[in-house]
């Protein structure tokens, strides 16, 4: 304490080397701690995200028993579990015999406040959406968040024709199989969900082969072998 006092009296400042060293050391230690915690928690966080996505695939394609990630490479769908950057992919849902039943398509777009990311199930044979799950959204609590909290709204996507395209209508006025009853008080969020699915359809439908031409469940190993 006396030392500090004397320094203050003499008006001596600690050297700038000491100031830089203090901050540098603090930054270095902080960086080391952050990196080790990041490394320690990363596997759990990645595993959780993968689990959420898997569960969502089974949620939006109710009757499937197996799934496989299908990446869109060189104009065709290829079974590929390893994710890569800037790669577009859907998830194929298969029945117990390995036959393709439908696709779970991820899509995203602007909502009321922030990007909404969702996953929807699509049956190519019937040209129908059979399920929708919101993966990420920051819609207004109590109003916009009904896009995943309101069971009646979510049920709209359980059996929804996509032709010519999905439209949202005022609540209670749904008459056609391609219409969705919007949520009262959350029209923008409801319309956003419909728009995001329509955009997903525009991007993916022509790329998706029908049930018979799709990559079958077991084929994966052979394909890999052939490529190599």
């Amino acid at each position, binding site marked *: 304490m006396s030392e500090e006092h004397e320094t203050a009296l003499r008006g001596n*400042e*600690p050297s700038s080397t*000491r*100031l830089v060293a*203090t*901050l540098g050391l*603090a*930054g270095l*230690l*902080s960086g080391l*701690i*952050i990196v080790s*915690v*990041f490394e*320690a*928690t990363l596997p*759990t*966080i990645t595993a*959780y995200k993968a689990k*959420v996505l898997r569960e969502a695939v089974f949620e939006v394609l109710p009757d499937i028993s197996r799934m496989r990630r299908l990446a869109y490479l060189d104009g065709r769908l290829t079974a590929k579990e390893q994710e890569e950057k800037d790669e577009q992919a859907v998830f194929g849902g298969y029945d117990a015999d390995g036959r393709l039943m439908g696709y779970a398509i991820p899509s995203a777009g602007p909502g009321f406040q922030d990007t909404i990311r969702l996953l929807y199930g699509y049956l190519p044979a019937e040209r129908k959406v059979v399920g929708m799950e919101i993966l*990420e959204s*920051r819609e*207004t*609590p*109590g*109003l916009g968040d009904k896009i995943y909290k309101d069971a009646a709204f979510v049920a709209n996507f359980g059996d929804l024709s996509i032709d010519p395209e999905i439209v949202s209508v005022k609540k209670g006025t749904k008459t056609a199989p391609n219409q969705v009853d919007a949520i009262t008080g959350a029209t923008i969020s409801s319309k956003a969900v419909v728009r995001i699915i329509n955009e997903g359809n525009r991007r993916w439908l022509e790329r998706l082969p029908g049930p018979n031409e799709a990559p079958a469940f077991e084929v994966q190993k052979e394909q890999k072998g052939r490529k190599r």
Partner: protein
Amino acid sequence: MSSTRAQPDAYQEFIKGLWRDNPVFVQVLGMCPMLAVTNSATNALAMGGATFFVLVASSFLVSSLKQWIPKQVRISTYIIIIATFVTVTDFTLAALVPEIHKELGAFIPLIVANCMILGRQEAFASRNSVRLAVVDALGMASGFLFALFALGSVREILGEGAFFGLDLFGSDFEPWVIMILPPGGFLTLGLLLLFFSWIRERKEKLAQQLAETEAELR
């Protein structure tokens, strides 16, 4: 001698944060997370818990290192210390309770900017013993947690008709949606501030009356 004297001191420091100088109801600090994430009791507790850890850990470290931190760079060093603990909390919550972490969103990283935390380092931890700094941080953090929880409970009960996600009133209750929206945060906070000031004022008046009657009796 020091231990007998330090005991009431430490107790006073703790109670100060929890009640007399409550960071929210008296000092009106840390309003941003206070208003933003208190739309349910669970979120309020998680936010309060995260802030609790960051404040206590930072106060401990700042107080332990106070001789080695030159005063010209003290604020930057405090911020580095606080930011480290916040980032550690952020990753830990994301790994342990991902659902809650998703709800709290950007507000966990924003604990860095909570003026209550930096304020305690500058005003208390950097000038007092490690023991007192930790007790002070425990008190302030408990006070903050208590305030968040009070606000979160009121808003969830009125705005969703639920408490910790459990339905309270059945289907006949029409949720008062505005209470879980931002305006509801301001309304509830205002009313709680009013309530706590009223209690304080009443207590002071009572104490004054007591003193007067005592004086008359003599």
